[in-house]
């Protein structure tokens, strides 16, 4: 019955309740979205890193893959060391540069390795699966194929600079790369070809990807973290002028770059929790204040303090439940909208996400809000339960 009384008390002032629930919904949605923001980019990074299937990355000192134009000068030394490393199954050397057609510029990647999982072939075949003539084989992404107006089997001519000589290539495949920016035109070719086009970059690599042996596991699963760290540590010791990352170290380095977003999310999350706390405390304090006479009468009739506390806490729970339902829906919708806005940024890889709507984040937001609301309700609940009966009844009559 006290729950029924609480429910009807909440519905007594419909407009006040509507505003309160709306504000609570916004607080829950904000908190859920900030949790999603905090975790969304991290999850995206891990998903993308996982999708290419390499556990160790060797980069120029202090850089992450393609974060700068810096290159490893003598990459053949690195790959020789990798060949001698018993845990290494295969490696992929990658060098990025820019090439030009008559109409557009392309981000070109030279790759060198026995087998690659950096990209997936969506049309045609991979570089080494097609017979080569005097023209080098290339694969390119949809954006590049569209910009150049070519398809599998077509020939394209590219230059290293506006005034350089043209070199002819044959398109053997269309590919999709996880790290591509939305508008990026990417072309991939054998490393030797890039070295031929850019002799000044001979033996250089932007980074080297390393796949470790994973005994008794499918080839695309990861080696144990200890093995990753051991190989990374061994390479780092051998090449102190380079940065070597295992997957967890790379995630840690990326998280460092996300610190701004995390702090932003933490500040807004804290604000939303405080809003919930204050909102519940204010609304319930007003509600209890308005009903002091009723509460004093109930107490004088013998209602236990626990019953009165329960009634006020039930009111808080009802408000929070309504706010949680509305906030969950709002948070889910808002996360999708915000994600669409932010992922339209041209400087962000196409597969990246800021907000990943997930029930877990919604549930955590609801639980945190519920705890904040319950704590906020304690003070008015205790105030109501400990009301001075004679004085209150006297004041009410006077």
């Amino acid at each position, binding site marked *: *019955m*006290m729950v*029924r*009384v609480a429910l*009807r*008390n909440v*519905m*007594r002032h419909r407009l006040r309740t509507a505003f309160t629930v709306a504000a609570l919904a916004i607080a829950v949605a904000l908190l859920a979205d900030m949790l999603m923001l905090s975790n969304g980019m991290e999850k995206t990074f891990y998903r993308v890193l996982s999708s290419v299937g390499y556990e160790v990355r060797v980069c120029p000192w202090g850089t992450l893959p393609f974060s700068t134009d810096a290159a490893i000068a003598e990459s053949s030394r690195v790959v020789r060391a990798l060949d001698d490393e018993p845990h290494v199954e295969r490696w992929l050397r990658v060098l990025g540069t820019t090439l030009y057609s008559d109409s557009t510029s392309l981000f070109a990647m030279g790759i060198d390795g026995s087998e690659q999982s950096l990209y997936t072939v969506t049309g045609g075949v991979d570089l080494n699966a097609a017979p080569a003539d005097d023209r080098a084989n290339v694969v390119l992404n949809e954006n590049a194929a569209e910009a150049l107006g070519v398809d599998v089997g077509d020939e394209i001519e590219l230059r290293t600079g506006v005034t350089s000589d043209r070199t002819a290539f044959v398109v053997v495949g269309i590919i999709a790369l996880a790290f591509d920016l939305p508008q990026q035109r990417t072309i991939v070719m054998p490393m030797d070809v890039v070295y031929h086009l850019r002799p000044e970059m001979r033996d250089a690599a932007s980074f080297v990807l390393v796949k470790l042996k994973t005994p008794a596991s499918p080839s695309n699963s990861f080696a144990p973290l200890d093995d990753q760290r051991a190989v990374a540590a061994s390479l780092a010791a051998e090449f102190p002028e380079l940065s070597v990352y295992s997957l967890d170290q790379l995630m840690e380095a990326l998280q460092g770059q996300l610190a701004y977003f995390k702090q932003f999310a933490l500040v807004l999350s804290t604000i939303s929790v405080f809003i919930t706390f204050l909102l519940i405390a204010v609304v319930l304090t007003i509600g209890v204040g308005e009903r002091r*006479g*009723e509460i*004093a*009468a*109930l*107490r*004088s*009739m*013998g*209602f*236990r*303090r626990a*019953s009165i506390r329960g009634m006020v806490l039930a009111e808080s729970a009802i408000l929070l439940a309504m706010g949680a339902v509305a906030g969950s829906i709002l948070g889910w919708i808002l996360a999708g909208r915000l994600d669409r806005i932010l992922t339209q940024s041209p400087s962000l890889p196409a597969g990246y996400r800021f907000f990943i709507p997930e029930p877990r984040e919604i549930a955590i937001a609801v639980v945190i809000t519920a705890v904040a609301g319950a704590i906020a309700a304690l003070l008015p609940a205790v105030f109501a339960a400990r009301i001075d*009966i*004679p004085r209150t*009844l*006297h004041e*009410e*009559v006077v």
Partner: protein
Amino acid sequence: MTGEVVIRASQIGKQYRVGASIVEAVRAFDLEVRAGESVALMGPSGCGKSTLLNLFGCVDTPTSGHLEVFGTDVASMNEGDRSALRLRRIGFVFQRFYLLPVLTAFENVELPMIEARVAKPERRTRAESLLARMGLTHRLHHRPHQLSGGEMQRVAIARALANQPRLLIADEPTGELDRKTGASILNLIHELRHDGLAIVMATHDAHAASLADRVIDMERLAA
């Protein structure tokens, strides 16, 4: 009077601290009320009527003297014990009714029984019977704002009787009612003593007080 002693007050007093000063609301008051007896405390505002009702109703404790309600020393009871005693053995009727506006007449009467953990079928039977006795069978599912002042006070009396108390405390029960309605409410209250209830009522109305078995003039006592 031969009924059991419900209230035995001997030399009770109540002092309040108001800021730096002490206010003596009740001083050396003696009273014995037995089952089936009605007592009216009469006097103007501020003479200590409500303070005495709070003491007799175990809402408050005396600062001096000795007060027994149902044979138990009120000063020896903790808050929980006094709450339990109020819930099960004392009924309260207030000047301002204090019905919960969000509940119907039936639910208002049922509420104290829920607190006392009375079984649902028994609650239903009692609530319907009490409201029928108050002439409110047709108002069971009306909310307080849909009732007249007299009807609200009848619901409040039914609520006070819900847990079958042995003592009824009524503080200015006709204070918010017109004379005619007030008279019918007073008759209703005083009839209850035939059920064996002890009734203690505070009033400033001499006519209301005259219906009681005993009238205690608080103003004269204070003098």
